């Protein structure tokens, strides 16, 4: 039996797939103790813990520790003269006209920041040796006195030569054996000291949190008779054995949305879809990601609460648009949806918990696209009258009918989602029309058709049990780790040789780490070179598969970069200008021997009825079906609602839905 448990902000989802079929369970989360919710889900599912071979877990423990500053006291050590790197940051402002602008708050305070005498140069030579006497005499006592539980070390130019960082870590670990020590060169080998220091301090900060969480979780599993493999999701879209994660805590940040993307990739991949735009709409936010050739796009430019993180993670764009997003009119008379959310409490007006502001969910109730009796599988009472009461003032303001105002709000939310997708597709040089849209989460399938229409996407593929696809993604993900390396080298006639040389070195390191983490021998490797024209400061990623690297020519390498540059920046298509490599990252994946197969669950009710719903300025007579009742030969014409216990799929007029051989529901234009 394989079991995935995903802890979200509101619900904890469980998917179990074994010889006897599929179990899907949803229970309320326990925000103060996420593992509590996870075990509640296990109990509710009725699965004997001893029968689980493979348990994969995803949680927001690390992310919340940062957002709520609930990590453990952490110290920062850097090169003499640069103690204030974390406070100085990059000197710019996110809001340019704000006279009371405030910087993002680092997780390490100024009083927790220390210096050590040493200096490495940009070419990796030592200018000033590490002053070991000073470390022992001054730094160690200061760290001890501060009662820190974690130490982040980031020395200047350590990305080229980590010798000083490693030696310093040895000295500190020897003197302070109970303290976690994290060095920047182990976390990311990229230049720009503030970003690297920020990444390193975040990693050190969540290290004890993750370590303790995993230890507690594992103990509890063991005492319940668990003997299988326990793994944890990472933000790069792969998982790691839980023990290995205890030393790679930074990868646990932002891992939640990654599981959903991987679930979508695996489930639609079974039907041959390789180019996807994923669309996850939940209660407060929407996550979108672009997947090309079966691989989700990665980014190394991310920030959490304003603090930069420079590790490869899925390029997921999150915006504040969800079922709880508030519909309002600003003081200039513009209709707005979000980013403020009514959250789960008081929630949308229709929850009847005291919320009086109209939300996106209320708009759906008014349109008839959310049926009160079916909301969250019928587990929640919905007050449609409250929805109407809340939205009426906005309808009056624009002289519209209530339903038209609801349509407008949905259209506006969709427009915000479309822009979020364009940011990671069009702006990155990908044309959304070459992709299919894969919606999931509670509300993704409700919005998919209109979003696809705006983007010119012709096909929508909805996975079964779309509301819990993240939990499926946990057990459907490969085991993955990344190596990074900064090495500036000209991409001239020797470009292909450099590529091969770097690949050989990094491959060896990655294989050693894979072995240490127990990932097995069968692995797939992919090398990404960050390249630029000489003189530029930002690089364009260019990816090479293992099998290509052997026969790549210098011209081939240069041309691939020039094309990629032109796609993004609209110039630089000519490969004859000087080009250089700046850094490399190697992705190692240990693919699953066998993919667990998701299907419609048999427990669904077989509803079928006539319904009325409002869209595009008019009422329509439509059909209601349960997805489980659809046969492969069936064709459902919009307007229709297709329900499963975890989400509702809206098929607008002009679209036709069918169920494919893998239980994906495919929407196409009629």
């Amino acid at each position, binding site marked *: 039996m394989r079991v995935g448990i995903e802890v979200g902000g509101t619900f904890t989802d469980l998917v179990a797939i074994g010889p006897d079929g599929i179990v899907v369970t949803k229970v309320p989360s326990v925000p103060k103790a996420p593992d509590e919710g996870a075990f509640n889900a296990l109990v509710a599912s009725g699965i004997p813990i001893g029968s689980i071979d493979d348990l994969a877990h995803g949680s927001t423990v690390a992310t919340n520790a940062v957002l709520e500053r609930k990590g453990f006291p952490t110290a920062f050590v850097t090169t003499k003269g640069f103690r204030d*790197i974390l406070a100085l940051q990059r000197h710019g402002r996110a809001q*340019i*006209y704000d006279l*009371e602008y405030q910087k993002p708050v680092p997780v390490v305070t100024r009083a927790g920041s220390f210096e050590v005498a040493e200096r490495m140069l940009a070419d990796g030579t030592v200018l000033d040796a590490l002053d070991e006497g000073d470390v022992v005499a001054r730094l160690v006592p200061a760290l001890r006195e501060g009662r820190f539980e974690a130490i982040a070390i980031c020395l200047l130019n350590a990305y080229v030569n980590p010798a000083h960082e490693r030696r310093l870590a040895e000295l500190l670990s020897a003197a302070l054996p109970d303290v976690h020590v994290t060095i920047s060169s182990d976390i990311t080998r990229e230049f*720009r000291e503030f970003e690297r220091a920020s990444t390193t301090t975040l990693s050190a900060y969540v290290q004890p949190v993750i370590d303790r969480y995993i230890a507690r979780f594992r103990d509890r599993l063991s005492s319940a008779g668990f003997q299988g493999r326990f793994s944890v999701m990472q933000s790069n879209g792969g998982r790691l054995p839980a023990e290995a994660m205890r030393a790679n805590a930074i990868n646990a940040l932002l891992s939640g949305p990654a599981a959903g993307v991987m679930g979508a990739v695996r489930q639609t991949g079974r039907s041959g879809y390789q180019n996807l735009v994923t669309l996850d709409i939940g209660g407060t936010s929407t996550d979108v990601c672009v997947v090309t050739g079966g691989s989700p796009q990665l980014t190394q430019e991310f920030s959490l609460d304003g603090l930069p993180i420079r590790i490869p993670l899925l390029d997921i764009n999150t915006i504040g648009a969800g079922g709880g997003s508030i519909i309002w009119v600003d003081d*200039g008379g513009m209709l707005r949806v979000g980013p403020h959310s009514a959250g789960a409490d008081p929630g949308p007006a229709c929850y009847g918990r005291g919320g009086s502001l109209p939300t996106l969910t209320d708009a759906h109730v008014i349109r008839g696209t959310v049926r009160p009796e079916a909301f969250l599988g019928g587990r929640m009472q919905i007050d449609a009258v409250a929805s109407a009461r809340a939205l009426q003032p906005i309808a009056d303001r624009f002289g519209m009918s209530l339903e038209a105002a609801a349509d407008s709000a949905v259209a506006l939310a969709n427009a915000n989602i479309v822009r979020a997708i364009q*940011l990671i597709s069009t702006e990155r040089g990908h044309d959304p029309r070459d992709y299919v849209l894969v919606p999931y989460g509670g509300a993704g399938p409700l919005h998919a058709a209109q979003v696809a229409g705006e983007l010119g996407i012709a096909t929508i593929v909805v996975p079964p049990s779309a509301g819990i696809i993240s939990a499926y993604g946990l057990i459907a993900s490969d085991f993955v780790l990344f190596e990074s390396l900064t090495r500036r080298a000209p991409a001239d006639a020797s470009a292909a040789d450099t590529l091969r040389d770097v690949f050989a070195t990094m491959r060896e390191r990655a294989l050693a780490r894979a072995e240490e983490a127990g990932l097995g021998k069968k692995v797939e490797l992919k090398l990404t070179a960050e390249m630029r024209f000489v003189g530029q400061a930002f690089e364009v990623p260019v990816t090479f598969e293992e099998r290509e690297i052997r026969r790549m020519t210098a011209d081939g390498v240069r041309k691939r970069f020039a094309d990629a540059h032109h796609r993004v920046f609209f110039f630089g298509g000519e490969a004859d200008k000087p080009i250089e490599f700046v850094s490399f990252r190697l992705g190692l994946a240990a693919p699953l021997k066998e993919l667990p197969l998701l299907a419609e669950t048999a427990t669904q009710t077989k509803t079928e009825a006539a319904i009325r719903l409002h869209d595009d300025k008019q009422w329509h007579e439509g059909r209601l079906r349960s997805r489980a009742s659809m046969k492969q030969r069936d064709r459902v014409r919009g307007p229709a609602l297709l329900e499963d216990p975890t989400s509702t799929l809206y098929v607008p007029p002009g679209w036709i839905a069918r169920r494919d051989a893998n239980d994906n529901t495919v929407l196409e234009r009629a």
Partner: protein
Amino acid sequence: MQERTAKVGAKPKSRTMTGKARAGSKSLALLDPVDYAVISQALIAVAREMGTKLIRSSYSNIVREAQDASAALFDPAGNVVAQAELIPMHLGSMSEIFRACTEVTPISELRPGDFYINNDPYGGGQHLQDVFIFTPIFHEGALVAFAGTVAHHLDLGGGNPGMTPDAVDVHAEGIIIPPSRYVYERDWNGGTLERLIAANVRVPSQTIGDFYAQFAANAIGTARMIELCARYGTATVSAAMTELMAYSERRFRAALSAIPDGTWHGEDAVDDDGIGDTPLTVKAAVTKKGDTVSVDFSGTVPQVGRNLNCPWASTVSATLAAIKGALTSPDIPFNEGFKRPITVTAPKGTLVNPNYPAPVRARLLPAYRCFNATLKALAQVVPDKVTAGGNDSTHALAISHLGERGYRVYLEIYGGGFGGGPRLDGCDAVDSPLSNCTNTPVEATDMDFDHFRIVGYGLLPDTGGAGRQRGGLGFYRRFLILKDGTNFATYTDRMRLSPYGLLGGADGSRTRIEIERDGKIIRSRSKDRLDLKTGDVLTLYTSGGGGYGAAEARDPRLIARDVAQGYVTAESAQRDYGWTDKT
């Protein structure tokens, strides 16, 4: 003295305003609220994408690391519709700089492939280094918009690499590109204009690369606008552009109406002109009447012989930024509509509206005093919306060297502490309000330059003025010079006159630059040029912000935090706040 008045909201008042009103009502009838919201957000997204890509594909450290560049979209008449929020100084007056080009070649004569270019301080521009390029966007044969970008170019010639502190006129500061129309394929792209500029700058590989990044960003704006027009129809997009400006105008006028009518005066000064020691005073009279506001700089000192003159476009930008920061909520988009209720006036021949050929390189310094004088006037009527004086200066440092491989020019600009505010302490060590440049990572300077090394960079405790809300801290940046014959040029300010406290808050600390040579300290003047030697240690200390409100009213927990974190030393806390260490 000739008066110069700008109705900064674009065109001559009477006829245009009625024309706009008609267009506005027509546009509203045509627009449904969703289309309008969608297109207006898309326009802002296009401008932002242009700005991001300009920075990411550029070459010089001043654009790619410091991000001294901006981008905007304009309607077919040249009104700013949406902008990438990068550098306030660039953005406020882009339409004025655009309009100077139309006076040379009317818009009606533009063809696809043409572009306008302008860096002329006396032709609508700011200082020479900021080169503005505008590309007309055509769809189905009709002009639908303009894409515009500006980048601060590392070096555009002139008497000294990076900057020429002792320039006697604008000609000594670099190459002037008067407002003009060129054809991209013919004149750039290996053509005569590109070759002319390349031959007149010291680091053409970087400078020409940055120009290409500007053209490419304009091309991106063009492609996106054409997509929008194809999707929604040109008429709908035009209507949305008109309405977006009307929207900002409406919201701003509503905010103005909530403030009492009256006239208030404020003044602040630049330390000196770099030769003498007389402060250069800028005076502002701010008049608020109904839903309009006007700022008059009469009484400001005459223009000076050194580069501290503030061209008209810069004065306008600075004044608008003060008004935007103080009187509007941050989510009102900045565009031409916001500018319509504002009038700025300054007599010709003054520091803030100089006559040709006064040099203008350091125009940001007097521009900051326009900003401060305006805020000080506003402090008398809306003290809860205005902050104390901050570092509010651009400290520009150029450290360059001519070696066997040609010129190496390191140019960076620095801020300091913000003034304390009505609610929050001033931000520590951040670029000043009219600018928004990021620092160059130390690891990047280590990689790119071998004539100096940065050996220290940190906060300066006790530099923020005491107050209920403390002023933000200044910082230091220390350079070890590694080569003889290294050339240092600078303009800075607040060396003589401290950032002012507000409502009982104390002043912030002053700026200084020190060079340690053979055990002795040499003080740089605020505007200076010096030859440096191997082993010299040069340190810039930037100003902390002034405090807001009386120190006695400060929350004791904040004082304790400041001491614990080393933002304020125990001695200063005792002196300024009567704090005692009770542990």
